[in-house]
């Protein structure tokens, strides 16, 4: 009879299903909220459908531009999600995605404005520099944690602010800088993709998409298929056993924070070089890094999960103005996002319910 007990996890128990349920629950609550404020929740879903497919149900018109924008919005969510997820798999809590994103963005725009304008090379240099800078910014946290046991939560939060003001200082020195922007980027630095622009009616969709696909594959490959990922995962699950087995735990921590930072740095580069024509002198945070935490939680830190969760957040972001035009307060999307995170945190409740169900099954099996 024991073979019945150890059969593979049922559909309801898979982590993916839990995330899906959580998302649906979030939307359900959002719907109720919209009803409570006296608006038609159908309009909310129409906006979401339009953000997702470009199809305007009311007017019966299709505008593919929305698809392009949604994808473009999803890019930083996905990458910052990976930034959080990569550290989370090693048992670290990277709240520094925002700072790593800012550092990446700043370095990318500096290289874009100051670097050699060689077609095909220029943007690559800018992106590479951003990735390295993000990795450096994350790596600092890793070293502090590994060598001096500084809590990564504290150091990442503080580094976020250092990144923000450092970015302002650096950006002020860039050519043509005023209080909010710099000169326009040279064409060689941009990630624009003419073909994408044509098929998506001049959305901001750009070559960054390719970089994201590479990042997704890389994340999956490093985590699941390499010895580096093996050591990192072992460290994340059980640091003591990893240490006892000779896995270089301190190095794992530094490496993972650096790689986490690289993902966020890449996000910064893609946003600035893909969606902006000029450098930015930022006065606040874009919050992609913070949203990345939620994305990683919803996506359960797995490659596919984070990708899907990032797309969801992209859809919601793109749906905001569409909702407003339909008299739905755009903040509802933020509430839905918030609720999803809260429900994820309640996951353990669901887990307990599943345990109870399983126990009942075994019991009835024992009687049969």
């Amino acid at each position, binding site marked *: *009879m*024991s*073979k019945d*007990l*150890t059969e*593979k996890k049922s559909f309801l128990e898979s982590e993916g299903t839990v995330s899906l349920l959580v998302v649906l629950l979030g939307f359900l609550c959002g719907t109720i909220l919209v009803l409570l404020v006296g608006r038609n929740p159908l309009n909310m879903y129409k906006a979401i459908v339009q953000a997702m497919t470009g199809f305007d149900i009311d007017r019966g018109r299709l505008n593919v531009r929305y698809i392009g924008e949604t994808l473009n919005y999803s890019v930083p969510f996905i990458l910052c999600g990976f930034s959080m997820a990569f550290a989370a798999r090693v048992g670290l809590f990277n709240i520094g995605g925002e700072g790593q994103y800012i550092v990446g963005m700043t370095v990318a725009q500096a290289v874009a404005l100051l670097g050699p304008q060689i077609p095909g090379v220029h943007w690559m240099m800018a992106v590479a520099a951003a990735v390295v800078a993000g990795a450096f910014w994350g790596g600092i946290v890793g070293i502090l944690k590994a060598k001096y046991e500084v809590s990564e939560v504290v150091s990442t939060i503080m580094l976020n602010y250092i990144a923000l003001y450092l970015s302002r200082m650096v950006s002020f020195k860039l050519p043509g800088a005023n209080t909010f922007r710099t000169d326009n980027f040279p064409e060689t630095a941009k990630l624009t993709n003419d073909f994408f622009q044509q098929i998506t009616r001049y959305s901001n969709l750009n070559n960054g998409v390719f970089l994201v696909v590479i990042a997704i594959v890389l994340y999956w490959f490093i985590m699941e*298929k*390499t*010895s*580096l990922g*093996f*050591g990192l*995962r*072992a460290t994340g*699950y*059980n640091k*003591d*056993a*990893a*240490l*006892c*087995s*000779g*896995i*270089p735990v301190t190095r794992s921590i530094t490496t993972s924070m650096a790689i986490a930072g690289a993902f966020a740095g890449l996000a910064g580069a893609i946003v600035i070089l893909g969606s902006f024509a000029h450098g930015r002198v930022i006065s606040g945070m874009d919050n992609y890094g913070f949203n990345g935490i939620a994305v990683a939680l919803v996506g359960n830190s797995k490659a596919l999960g984070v990708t899907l969760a990032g797309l969801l957040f992209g859809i919601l972001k793109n749906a905001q103005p569409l909702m407003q035009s339909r008299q739905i307060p755009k903040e509802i999307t933020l509430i839905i996002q918030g609720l999803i995170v809260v429900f994820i945190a309640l996951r353990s409740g669901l887990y307990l319910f599943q*345990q109870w169900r*399983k*126990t009942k099954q*075994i*019991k009835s099996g*024992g009687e049969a």
Partner: protein
Amino acid sequence: MEDYAIEMIGISKAFPGILANDKVNLSVRKNEVHALLGENGAGKSTLMSILFGSYSADEGTIKINGREEKIKDPNAATALKIGMVHQHFKLVHNYTVTENIVLGQEPRNRFGFLDLRDARKRVQKLSEQYGLQVDPDAKIEDVTVGQEQRVEILKTLYRDADIIILDEPTAVLTPQEIDELMDIIKLLKSEGKTVVLITHKLKEIKAVADRCTVLRRGKSIDTVDVAGVTEKDLAEMMVGRAVNFSTEKKPAQPGEVVLSLKDLVIEDALGAVRVNNLSLDVREGEIMGIAGVDGNGQSELVHAINGMYPLTSGAIVLDGEDITRAGVRRRIQQGVGYVPEDRHKYGIVKDFSLSENVILKTYYQEPFSGRFGYMDTKPMDELTDKLIEEFDVRAGKGHVTEAGSLSGGNQQKLIIAREINLSPKVLVIAQPTRGLDVGAIEYIHKRIIAERDAGKAVLVVSYDLDEIMNLCDRIATISKGQILDVSDVKDVNEHEIGLMMAGEKKSKAGSDE
């Protein structure tokens, strides 16, 4: 019509993935010492937890003193005069004995303030009545493990328990303390108490128990009068087949010194000396056993050999090479195999599959990792299948089973399989068979001896003196971080080692008893 203190009829209890109790029957007569015998994972602790109200049974009835009862929590059990002494004591370390005993039902004076005077008197009286010799004013942190256990027993007596359940009470005791505990159990019986003794040690059952119920894989096999059976009979009932008791082994053929510990001093994080100027040589082809009571520096010592605990001073030499400053991985490569005492914390990654656990120390090497660190699952799965088969690791789903879902014994087999497969020069094993069943113990001992016969040096740390005497060729006795004596197993007896474990140096005059 017999008078029963406890009757548990048709008790079943399922946990996710396992049916821990399957229609178990247990009848304990009034005023008897009843042993509950079974391998680890046989369901003994589950059954007693149900009786004590920690778990609720899925089905079955419980009668206490002939009346059917629903025991929904430990408070209900206490009200029914059932007391339990858990394997891991539940005491507050910076409280006194009396404070610990009253904890949960603190006596108050008429102003509502804590008043321990009467309680203290009662503790003192009970302690004398049952020969427990516990000082009611001593702080728990100052008393020995054996005394902690007596405090737990006192706690049940203080709560007027008539039925006292002892869960694996001898696991943490020295031989002398075990003898004393046996006397205490007899005294409890003579004072009219009913004692249920959970154990897998047959010697103890023969020593004190009147009757014995044997559990095997969640089912009650039989209840027998202890006087009418031999240890061998009991063992066979427990395992379900004939067992070979004494470990057969040829005399050791020791060779060169492989592992040499020189003047090791280890301090813990607070600066307390855990290992004090310890020197020890382990030769190839011998099993060196470290005998001692838990907490005398053994854990720090074996951790330090594996490279996880910093040395304050001293040197560790492996096969002529100084590895004092080498990291853990380097030591593993040099040939240090290590089976840690706390297998959940240090031995396995519970969320990893068996395969992933098997390659935990070698995952970065061929054939598991190829170029650019690309990992191939086939070699690791094949190796794991081989080890599962060879070491009889019982896993529901083969090599993809999560290690955390295995029973403790199977986890230990997995770890030992991994370490032996590494073919180390020295194999350091802390508590090789803690919590394992007789069959597994037999097998693991055999494997350890086979490693020895293959010319490996083996260092065994165990708190179970029987195991040390049975398995090892030489015995080093440790107390307070110092090795008091190293003797050939032929030249010492349990009594001498027991005295040294308690800190008494062996008299130079030798055997003058």
